[in-house]
Each structure stands twice: as structure tokens, then as C-alpha cells.
């Protein structure tokens, strides 16, 4: 069977499974539609949360980015997992006890204000819509690279599949599909990693292989890798830091707080039966996430080593790399190299005309002389980060079915996250805006219909944005996390942990956090990401705030939110008695009830 046939088979099987689940899990009530009836087993919910959380970026791009960044890539590893500790202790159990369908509903009720709910809806919509653009493009990328169909066809097929189980099944359909998608994606991610770890180090567990010696030698993999990359003028793999340590610190913190504040993740904890289950479920979610996230650094380092050893055969024998005889001859490059060249993800240009491939850091001033002596005239190979995961099975010479599995896994990762986001968007519209603000007397059937219409609209908008990604698509993830960190997380946390926090404080805090974050991001990336409207001069130059990059600024926004909220709170009147009683009630587990949509 050809590789292409395997890919069609694996993707086809996984899609058939999702459609089967869609038919089985139709939602009949709003409770089923918004929170899967509140009866999901905590371990299952953990699995669904993991699939919901791990996006196309986690599956396809993260290992590649870490591969390039080395040690500093840990900010994604720690940032995207550490948030679950905050979520488990500070938000999830209390929001489950509160017992309503959506995050804006909590903010609206706790701060006894429709304006607060509307501010929360706006934050939620901006964060979720920007986030979903990346998922739709991820679906398109996975389709076009693995199945040789155009991006457009890929996105239409993806929209169709999500439509089936999200519109009819709501949270119920999405939850059970996500469980299946988790299984597909984790198998697809770990199998190539196990084989590669086995080949390089003889240890089948990638997490241990990364700390082991290379097979048939007494040199540790990381030690050899450090030596190779520094010879080639790159930063040392185990120590290189992006920007400053302070920036890495703030970036990690922003991702953690942002993770805990993203509504599509929080919402998943409304689906478990009890407060106790919400706590456990967060733990299970992180177990399932950590399986991939602790494998990723091994994939990253091993793929970097494999790639460099392919380009420089001398690396295998520990001979000098920077010589005129190094860099493999272009016509001797392996098959997988040729295949990925066709996609444009690997690009070779023979700058010094010697017919060999040289891949090194030509911007390293200290090593210029060394490179010149070897007759190297600049880096000749451009490697797209996404290739690290996608080409992995081929580099390791694994059979066709593994490659098919990786394709299905990449699609599972993108589709599961897209579905979770779509539900967050549609429930904010149908439950918080239509029922909460515009038409409070809508009946159950009407709301269910409104939810489905909102879902269809959201799928169409997401599909449109995926087909016509705005030029700023790459910068939007920073925005989604920045908004979640600077507005939603602090508001929810203060709503639980400060009994006296009033509506004036909460609204002022959310707006202030949002404003400073957007102000700083837009200064770098343009107002609403429109090119040419950057105003770096106004803030005193790039990364002017202690060298913090705009991606890392959400944590500063969160701090501003807390400070403004407490100051405004001090000068305005206390929340009413019944709200303080509500907070008391939310803090203790006893008396938790089934989730309802009553306003």
C-alpha cells in the first residue's frame, strides 16, 4: 500500500468515527447542548479537555519551535501546562459550584451587572475568534500537505465534519468526539517519538531517551547536540534564551494565566457532575496533556540532531563540521528531503556553488572567520518549524501507516480545538446575549435553536477567516492569551477570592487590563494589526517596557487589572448582601446542583 493510500485510509477511518459519534450523541436539551448534561465522567472530561486544549499549534508546530529555540522553548511547555494548576485551584471547582452554563454568566451574576457580562462576552468573542483562525488554517495545512488537496477543499471538509457533530451534538457531541480525537492524536504523536528515541538512544521512552547516551557511544545526546549546534554558530541547545530571563519569566506567566482564563477550557469543567470531580478532572486533563508535552522536547532535540546529522555526516563520527568537505552533496540527499522540498518547507540554495548543503548560523559574528576559511558563504538551507513533527516518521523511516496516523492526528488536534472554541462562541451569543440580554423570556426550544444558528454562523465565519486569513494571523495567538490573561482571569478570580469586590472595581479592572495590553500589542503590531499603524515612538521603542515583548505582556495587563480593580473598589460601595452570600456559597462544595441555565 502506498503512503498516500495509508493517509486516506487513516484520515477516512478517523472521520467515520467522528461522524458515528455525532449520530449517537445528538443533544435534545440546552443542558446537553451547553454542558453535555453535566454528567461527563471526570477522566473522560480530562481527555476531552486535553484534546480541546492541544491545538494544531501544539501538535504540528510546538516541537519544531522548541527544536529551533532550545532551552528557551520551555516557556511554551511550562506556560501551556502550569496554567492548569491555577485553573484547578483558583477557578474550576468554584465555577462548577456556581452551576451555570457560561463564563460571562458568572461574571454578570457575581458582579450584578449586565454591562460586566457584556464586557466578558466581548473579551470571550475576541479571544476565541482570533484563536480559531489558527485552527482553521491548521486544518487547511494538514489537508494540503498530507492529502494533496488544496487548502480550500481541506477547510470545507473540516467545516463539514465539525458542523455535523457540533451543531447537532453541542457539548455532548463535542465531548465524546474529543475523547476519540485525543486517542488518535496521542497515538499519532508518541509512536514516531518512541521509534526515534529507540533508534538514537536505544531507550523506547522518549522522556528518558532525551537524557540518555547515543547508541553505541558514551556521549550523551544533549551533550553531542550542544557541541554540534555551537560548532555551527547557533546558541547552545540546553541554555539559549529568547531575549532576557525577565522576558522568559513574564512570557511563561502570561501563557499560564491566559491558559487558565480561556473560556473554552474553563467551560469544560461545567460538564462534570460534582465540585470534587472538577478538581480531579483538571488533574486528569494535565496528565493527558503532559503525555504529549513531555514527549515534545524529546522530539524537538532528536529531530534537530537527526536533521543536522543528515546534513553533516561528519557529526555522526564526531569529526570537524566546518570544513570544505562538509555538508552532504545535494544529489545525495535522502528521499524524505526531496519530498519536503516540494512542499516548500525545506529550501536549499547553493550560495557558494560547491554542490553541498551547508546549514549554519551565518549571523554569528564571532565565527565568521571559521566559516569563511571553510569556503561557506551563508546558510543554504531554510527549515520550516512545522517539518519537525510532520516529516519525523519519514526521517525515522517508519512504515506508511504511521505517516497516515500522523496526518489523522494533526487533523484531530485542529478539529477538536476548533469545536471547543465554536461552542464557546455560540454559547456566548445564544445564552449570554440572546437569553441574557435581548430576549430573557426565550423558551428552551428557542434557545437551543438560537444556539444551533449561532454555531452555524460561527462555523461560517471561522471558515471564511481560515480561507482568507488576515495578514495578522500569526500575531493573534498573542492577542488571545493577552486578553484572557489581562481581563477574564483576574475578574473571575477576584469574583471568588474577594467577597467585597464590587461591579465598579471589576469592570474598571477588566477594561484597564484589556486597554494596556491592547495598547502595548498594537504599538508593536499596528492598530487592530493594520500594517503601518504601529506607534512604537509613543511608547519609547520596541519592547520598551523592561524589554518585555508584546506576547509576554498579558501578565503585566493582569497585574494592572488587579491593581485598578482594588483601587476603584476602595472608593465605591460594597456589593449587596446577597452577592456576598453568593460568594460564601460558591466557596463550599456542599449543595452543588446540576448545572442550569436560569438567569
Amino acid at each position, binding site marked *: 500500500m502506498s503512503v498516500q493510500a495509508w493517509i486516506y485510509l487513516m484520515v477516512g477511518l478517523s472521520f467515520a468515527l467522528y461522524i458515528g459519534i455525532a449520530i449517537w450523541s445528538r443533544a435534545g436539551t440546552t443542558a446537553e447542548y451547553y454542558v453535555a448534561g453535566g454528567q461527563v465522567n471526570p477522566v473522560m472530561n480530562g481527555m476531552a479537555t486535553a484534546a480541546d486544549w492541544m491545538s494544531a499549534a501544539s501538535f504540528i508546530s510546538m516541537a519544531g519551535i522548541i527544536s529551533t529555540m532550545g*532551552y528557551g*522553548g*520551555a516557556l511554551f*511547555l*511550562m506556560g501551556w*501546562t*502550569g496554567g*492548569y*494548576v491555577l485553573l*484547578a*485551584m*483558583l477557578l474550576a*471547582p468554584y465555577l462548577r459550584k456556581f452551576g451555570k452554563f457560561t463564563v460571562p454568566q458568572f461574571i454578570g451574576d457575581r458582579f450584578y451587572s449586565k454591562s460586566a457580562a457584556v464586557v466578558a462576552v466581548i473579551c470571550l468573542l475576541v479571544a476565541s475568534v482570533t484563536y480559531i483562525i489558527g485552527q482553521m488554517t491548521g486544518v487547511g495545512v494538514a489537508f494540503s500537505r498530507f492529502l494533496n488537496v488544496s487548502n480550500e477543499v481541506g477547510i470545507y471538509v473540516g467545516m463539514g465534519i465539525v458542523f455535523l457533530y457540533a451543531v447537532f451534538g453541542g457539548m455532548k457531541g463535542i465531548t465524546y468526539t474529543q475523547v476519540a480525537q485525543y486517542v488518535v492524536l496521542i497515538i499519532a504523536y508518541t509512536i514516531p517519538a518512541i521509534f526515534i528515541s529507540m533508534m538514537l538512544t536505544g531507550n523506547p521512552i522518549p*522522556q*528518558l531517551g*532525551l*537524557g*540518555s*547516551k547515543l547508541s553505541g557511544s558514551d556521549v*550523551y*545526546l*544533549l*551533550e553531542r547536540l550542544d557541541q554540534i549546534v555551537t560548532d555551527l554558530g547557533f546558541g547552545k541547545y*540546553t*541554555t539559549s534564551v529568547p531575549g532576557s*530571563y525577565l522576558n*522568559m*519569566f513574564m512570557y*511563561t*506567566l502570561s501563557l499560564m494565566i491566559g491558559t487558565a482564563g480561556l473560556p473554552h477550557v474553563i467551560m469544560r469543567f461545567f460538564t462534570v457532575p*460534582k*465540585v*470534587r470531580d472538577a*478538581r*480531579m478532572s*483538571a*488533574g486528569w486533563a*494535565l*496528565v493527558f496533556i*503532559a503525555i504529549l*508535552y*513531555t514527549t515534545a*522536547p524529546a522530539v524537538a532535540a532528536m529531530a534537530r540532531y537527526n536533521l543536522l546529522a543528515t546534513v553533516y555526516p561528519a557529526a555522526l563520527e564526531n569529526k570537524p563540521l566546518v570544513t570544505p568537505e562538509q555538508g552532504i552533496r545535494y544529489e545525495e540527499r535522502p528521499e524524505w528531503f526531496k519530498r519536503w522540498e516540494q512542499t516548500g518547507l525545506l529550501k536549499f540554495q547553493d550560495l557558494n556553488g560547491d554542490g553541498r548543503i551547508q546549514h549554519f548560523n551565518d549571523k554569528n559574528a564571532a565565527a565568521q572567520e571559521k566559516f569563511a576559511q571553510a569556503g561557506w558563504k551563508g546558510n543554504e538551507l531554510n527549515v520550516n518549524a512545522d517539518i519537525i513533527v510532520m516529516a519525523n516518521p519519514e526521517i525515522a523511516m517508519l512504515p506508511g501507516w504511521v505517516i497516515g496516523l500522523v496526518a489523522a492526528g494533526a487533523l484531530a488536534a485542529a478539529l477538536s480545538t476548533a469545536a471547543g472554541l465554536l461552542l464557546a462562541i455560540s454559547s456566548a451569543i445564544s445564552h449570554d446575549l440572546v437569553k441574557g440580554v435581548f430576549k430573557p423570556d426565550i423558551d428552551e426550544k428557542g434557545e437551543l435553536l438560537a444556539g444551533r444558528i449561532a454555531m452555524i454562523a460561527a462555523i461560517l465565519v471561522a471558515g471564511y477567516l481560515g480561507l482568507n486569513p488576515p495578514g495578522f494571523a500569526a500575531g493573534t495567538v498573542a492577542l488571545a492569551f493577552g486578553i484572557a490573561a489581562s481581563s477574564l482571569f483576574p475578574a473571575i478570580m477576584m469574583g471568588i477570592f474577594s467577597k467585597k469586590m464590587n461591579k465598579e472595581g471589576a469592570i474598571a479592572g477588566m477594561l484597564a487590563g484589556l486597554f494596556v495590553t491592547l495598547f502595548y500589542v498594537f504599538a508593536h503590531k499596528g492598530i487592530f494589526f493594520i500594517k503601518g499603524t504601529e506607534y512604537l515612538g509613543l511608547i519609547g521603542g520596541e519592547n520598551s517596557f523592561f524589554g518585555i515583548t508584546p506576547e509576554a505582556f498579558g501578565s503585566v495587563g493582569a497585574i494592572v487589572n488587579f491593581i485598578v480593580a482594588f483601587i476603584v473598589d476602595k472608593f465605591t460601595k460594597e456589593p449587596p448582601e446577597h452577592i456576598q452570600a453568593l460568594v*460564601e456559597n460558591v*466557596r*463550599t*462544595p*456542599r*449543595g*452543588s446542583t446540576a448545572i442550569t441555565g436560569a438567569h
Partner: protein
Amino acid sequence: MSKSPQAYWSATLRLISIVLVIWFIVSYVAGIILAPALNSIHLGGYPLGFWFAHQGSMYAFVAMIFYYAFAMDKIDHEFDVHEE
């Protein structure tokens, strides 16, 4: 020991603070601030600071959520506010 809601809440806050301190130490202190210093110690082929950043912090996160969940359960029973 008093079984008032205030006492329950302060027991909860105490647990959360302890876990948050550990959370901060394994990720920000061991994984970032002290990483360069810890790198002189090795765990197999892993420099220790690098290991905390790329592996150890995540294992610790998982362990601390389950510890929190079990400890909270105990506190809930102790103060008789657990779910029936």
C-alpha cells in the same frame, strides 16, 4: 478546631498558598531563575535546570493538582462541607 465557614476558607487558602509556592519554585525558580546555576548538576544527560524547564516542572504540576484534589477532599470532610 472551629468548623465555621471562615475556618474552612482559611484552611483552603493555606493549602492553595502552599501549592502555589511549590508551583512557583519548580517552574520559575528552578526552571528559569536558577536554571543557569542548576545546569552544573546533571541528571543523566540532562543539565538539571534544563530538565526542570523541559520535563520536571510538568511532572510536578500533575502531582500538585492531584495532591491539591486529595487534600481538599480531606478538608471538605473535616469541616463537613463535602458533597453527599
